[in-house]
């Protein structure tokens, strides 16, 4: 089966999403190693892995919730929180790290007032850490959704964030500083 894209922002009912989840479970439950692909697809469908989805996947795969939780919490790709419109991933691979990735991360955390793995209250931004996007020559690198941004400077984080912010207040705040 194919899952076209994230449904965030679309008008899709929960029932429709659950129907798609059932298809994913049906397709993967008898395959060796089918749990991880199913979790990946579930995350694409729902944007994250809420309790209800974890319950259903555990049941469908005849595994305990605790074991499924162990897999989800092992991989940083999986998230238990709804992600914002913009997923900001700061690379902390070796090259980015030595060229100030950590400082970039700190500046973004401060600007968005969230920690790694969290989402802003207005659901605009989520923050994650990456380990090398294969763009070391442009370090430090930040990815926002599917776009890569090179040589990001901690001192100019307000402008960096402002380019995505659709929220008026956030833009103004960014310009002020």
């Amino acid at each position, binding site marked *: 089966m194919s899952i076209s894209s994230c449904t965030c922002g679309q008008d899709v009912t929960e029932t429709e999403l659950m129907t798609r989840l059932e298809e994913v479970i049906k397709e993967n439950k008898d395959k060796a190693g089918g749990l991880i692909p199913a979790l990946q697809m579930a995350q694409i469908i729902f944007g994250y892995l*809420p*309790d*209800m989805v*974890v*319950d259903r996947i555990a*049941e469908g795969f005849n*595994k*305990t*919730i*605790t*074991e*499924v*939780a*162990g897999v*989800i*919490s*092992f991989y940083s790709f999986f998230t*238990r929180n709804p992600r914002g419109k913009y997923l900001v991933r700061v690379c902390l691979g070796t090259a980015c790290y030595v060229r100030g990735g950590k400082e970039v991360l700190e500046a973004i955390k401060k600007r968005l007032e969230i920690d790694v793995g969290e989402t802003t209250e207005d659901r605009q931004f989520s923050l994650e850490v990456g380990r090398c996007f294969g763009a070391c020559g442009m370090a430090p690198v930040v990815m926002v959704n599917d776009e890569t941004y090179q040589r990001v400077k901690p001192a100019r984080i307000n402008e960096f964030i402002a380019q995505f912010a659709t929220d008026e207040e956030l833009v103004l705040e960014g310009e002020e500083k």
Partner: protein
Amino acid sequence: MINITINSQAVQVPEDSTILQAARMINVQIPTMCHIEKRDPIGACRVCLVEVEGAKILQAACSTPVSEGMVIHTNSKKARMARRFVVELLLSEHDGNCQTCDRGSDCELRTLGEDMGISDLAFEGEKIKPHMDETTPALIRDSAKCIKCRRCVTVCNEVQGVGALYPQDRGFDVFIGPAFCRDLKDVACVQCGQCAAVCPVGAIAEKSSTPAIWDAIENPDICVVVQTAPAIRAALGEEFGYEPGTRVTGKMVAALRRLGFDSVFDTNFTADLTIMEEGTELLTRLKKALVDKEDVALPMFTSCSPGWINFAEFYFPQFLPNISTCKSPQQMFGAVAKSYYAEKIGVDPKNMIVVSVMPCTAKKFEAQRPEMNADGIQDVDYVLTTRELAKMIKEANLDFNSLPDEEMDAPLGLSSGAADIFANTGGVMEAALRTAYEIVTGRELPVENLHVAPITGLDGIKEASLVIEGTVDDWKFLEGVELKVAVSHGLGNTRRMLEYVKANGCPYHFVEVMTCPGGCIGGGGQPRFTDDSVRLKRIAGIYAEDEGKKLRKSHENPDVQKLYQDFLGAPLGEKSHHLLHTHYAPKSQTMSD
């Protein structure tokens, strides 16, 4: 067979052995913290590193298979130093509050450190994030002490088929616990305590009831009654240096009296009572099915083991109507003590405290179930594990070994050998057959020494069948019926059996289920460390206790007969129904409910 050399000793071992197994065959000890017998090795702790000639690096003995001509050095300097290094690293992140830790000298990590001569810590490492989980009535988890050996994960998932514990997160943040670092009360934990039984350190243990019991004993206005489960008498001695399986019934009674309990009674008494109620219930169900052609739930499952009840409520709610409505012997005892006995001695049940000594942690959970009371009076107030009782005896400075053998008090202290064998897998079934067969045929169960051989021993699922012949008038409808029974112990085996029954229908009439491997003698509250050799010794002790008694059948217990005459009336009568029976309800195992 293949040839290997361990520490210069040539030896032949089976091909599929690991180095650890091979070494044990010739009594060469290799320390290990994560290994559980008969389970696939996981190589998590690295404490069993040994030197193998020709190998570039040291090998974990538990997970390395032997090969022809292999030369192994378990005690070379290189191997010893590597193991020491591993233990030093474990100690560096372990919260080492040894002075106040529940485990004390019983801690495997501390013992290992001591044996290796580690006298100061080489690494000032980052400590594990502490989290105390005291959310359940039976167990406490102290994650700061966890060394992530995963023994608990192995028993919870593989042996018990429960899966309440699993490694969460990754790297240094790995946390052994319920889903997403929740607490035990938030997941489908059955409270069996097998995790606590295998934990090498103080990370999982029973929640202590000792302080409240000391207070009750001190209070002159309270009558404190104690009952001891059959499995205690063949294991308590281990805490005082006796061999596993040594029967210390008399010393245990003497110790309980000296601790200050007002009456020292036996859960065995209500094990006999359970047979009367449960046996009658089984025969009634069979009559309904065979004569009245009613739709009645068969097979009937035993209900003595509270971990099993939790397991069924979480995972197999469709079988709840099949579980006997009898309360467990522990709960029956509480109900009888606070009614019949309280009335007899003229004590207001409100001023009576019933304490149980159980081999079990799930019994702590069972005692506080809201349905376990009659007229608002809780059947059992506090539950001690075998380990906790040993601690109380030590706290009271009793010299256990020199105590005299004393007898249980009357009238709730007399029991048959059938009650003793409630302690081990197959025992409840055998006890039930001894009585039911005799009621139905008027003759003694026709097996050697009253033991039903096919259901003894440590096989996970055991079966037996018995053709009923020569029935007395009341039970003619059972003439020629082949009674089929099954016994399972260890919830993983039970899960397999129930999945089979779900898929293929049930060939049995009556099924005994015990939560823990080996039955109660291998319970989560028993002295550590329990493996199959210990289980077999305790079982042998229990059978010896049974065979040493004149009274071998529950229905012949004169004090139980008197209880019916003077107080209860008949089995399954109105009073029994009120005091001795209970009900079950499905429990959710999901996170979103």
